[in-house]
């Protein structure tokens, strides 16, 4: 006979009570695992999308808020606000490669799709795109699509796409990149400006700096030359991560409340157990159990609730992250993730942290009932009916 065996026997003596208490913890831990996985996935994706941008600086209209800056990374449609005059001023600064973007939306078979107007040649050089099939040709009647769009809508070269009432021949499909470049239709910038009736304006300008040591100088110089604001890719990622972090913290607090509620479930279960097993506590004391032994038996029982609840919660949370990821990917908030894999993060670190957290919290919840059981006087306990 070992203490562990005794604890486990006591744990499952009321099976339904055990099950519901474990489920309470499991729900809390599952939400924690899901949110942490999702949070890590979002963070990783934000960093990846910043790399995809391929630019060290992003030139935006003055007064853009953080949410609009996020949209540079997410591919959401953006207001057209930088006139061609400013684009030319930025482009004219020596030591930079500047690519203007016009980001808009259209619908294919009632599904929203991003349309990006770009300068074709400069962009191809900027991104080093390669073709999966067809050719890279953007002109008045031609369009190119990302791999994801072609896959989703079963598009092939020479098919006709209708965007804002204008027909375009699909010339080619880009090679799969595993990022949001896969999820857009590309048009010549001037054509996109014409069909979306935005005049000569663009949404933002991606800037590659030839000499990185001169970054700070360009951050000062660009706004002097044109009526625009400049943000570095690092600042952009930082501000996006700050928002992601705030959302994540809020969601984690909700998960923490769920776990806290489950802890009160454990306290309730263990308090009931101390009343029900009062006489048994007395027997153990008569057989030579110290107060510390009684305390540890009840505390271990509580910790086991945390362990089983934690393991079940981690499995459920991981399963939810895995199976729900494709559906989450369809929401406006997370559409930019581009690939489902980013949500499907199974981090041993996250799982370990959640299990330790669950164990700690459940043990903490067991302290008071264990203390109550340990301080029973042997005679009082043994005479209890």
């Amino acid at each position, binding site marked *: *006979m*070992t203490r562990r*065996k*005794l604890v486990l026997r006591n744990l499952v003596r009321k099976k339904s009570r055990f099950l519901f208490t474990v489920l309470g913890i499991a729900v809390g831990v599952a939400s924690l695992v899901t949110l942490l996985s999702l949070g890590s996935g979002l963070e990783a994706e934000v960093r990846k999308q910043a790399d995809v941008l391929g630019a060290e600086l992003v030139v935006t209209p003055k007064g853009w808020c953080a949410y609009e800056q996020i949209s540079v990374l997410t591919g959401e449609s953006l207001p057209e606000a930088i006139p061609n005059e400013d684009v030319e001023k930025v482009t004219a600064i020596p030591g930079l490669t500047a690519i203007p973007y016009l980001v808009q939306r259209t619908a294919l078979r009632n599904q929203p799709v991003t349309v990006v107007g770009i300068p074709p040649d400069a962009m191809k050089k900027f991104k080093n795109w390669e073709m999966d099939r067809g050719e890279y040709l953007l002109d008045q009647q031609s369009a190119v699509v990302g791999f994801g769009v072609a896959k989703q809508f079963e598009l092939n070269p020479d098919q006709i796409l209708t965007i804002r009432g204008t027909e375009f021949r699909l010339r080619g499909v880009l090679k799969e990149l595993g990022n949001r470049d896969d999820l857009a239709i590309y048009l010549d910038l001037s054509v996109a400006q014409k069909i979306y009736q935005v005049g000569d304006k663009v949404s933002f300008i991606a800037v590659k700096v030839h000499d990185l040591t001169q970054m700070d100088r360009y951050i000062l110089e660009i706004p002097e030359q044109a009526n625009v604001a400049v943000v570095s890719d690092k600042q952009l990622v930082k501000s996006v991560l700050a928002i992601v972090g705030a959302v994540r913290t809020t969601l984690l607090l909700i998960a923490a409340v769920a776990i806290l509620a489950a802890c009160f479930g454990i306290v309730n279960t263990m308090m009931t157990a101390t009343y029900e097993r009062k006489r048994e506590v007395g*027997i153990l004391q*008569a*057989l030579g159990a*110290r107060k510390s032994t009684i305390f540890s038996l009840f505390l271990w029982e509580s910790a086991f609730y945390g362990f089983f609840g934690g393991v079940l919660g981690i499995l459920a949370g991981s399963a939810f992250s895995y199976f729900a990821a494709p559906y989450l990917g369809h929401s406006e908030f997370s559409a930019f993730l581009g690939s489902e894999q980013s949500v499907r993060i199974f981090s041993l670190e996250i799982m370990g942290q959640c299990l330790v957290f669950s164990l700690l919290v459940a043990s903490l919840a067991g302290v008071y009932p264990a203390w109550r059981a340990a301080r029973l006087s*042997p005679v009082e306990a*043994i005479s209890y009916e």
Partner: protein
Amino acid sequence: MNEPIYRTEKLTKAYDDGYRTVALADVDLEIPRGSLSCIMGPSGHGKSTLLHLLGGLDRPTSGKVYLDGLDLSAMNANILAEVRGRRIGFVFQFFNLLPVLSVQENVEVAMMLARVPTSEHPARARELLGLVGLEDKLYARPHQLSGGQRQRVAVARALANDPDILLMDEPSGNLDSNSERELLDHIRRINQQGKTVVIVTHSPNVAAIAGSILHLRDGRLVV
């Protein structure tokens, strides 16, 4: 005459929860080592209280309990638990077996608390249960046993730590006459092995096997 294993001096226990009740008053007694003693008397006159004080389960309001010259009333809770675990075995009227454990495990749990090495538990538990005639009930749960069988498990459990002293509170109180007879045979045999046995009882059959009988009335020893 054997030297006493137990000695009490002016042993008094009173309960005060708004109304003072004296359960035991100025009891001086000696229990010889290796004896089989009975404590008799009407219900509510302090028999079980005396047994609890002898077993270190309770503390006197005043007076002393000496076990082999050591004052139990002066010991802290941990040392008392140690003494109970190593030197004393208890048997109660209502068997008090742990319902979630099998017969064998109920005996093993006492060994665990007495810190007997885990590897020795199964063999020793089987040996003790064999002594009380329950070798075929090792894996049964307490609710599957008769009252007499449960009490024999309780006796085996009380012997698990190989104690010097066996304290029994109405051990045959819930048994039929056949079961009582079997239990008394076991108790006699245990006493003959040199263990001191103290039994609180109302039963004249139990008293009949005792070497000495102490009578308690209104918390006082009656000569």
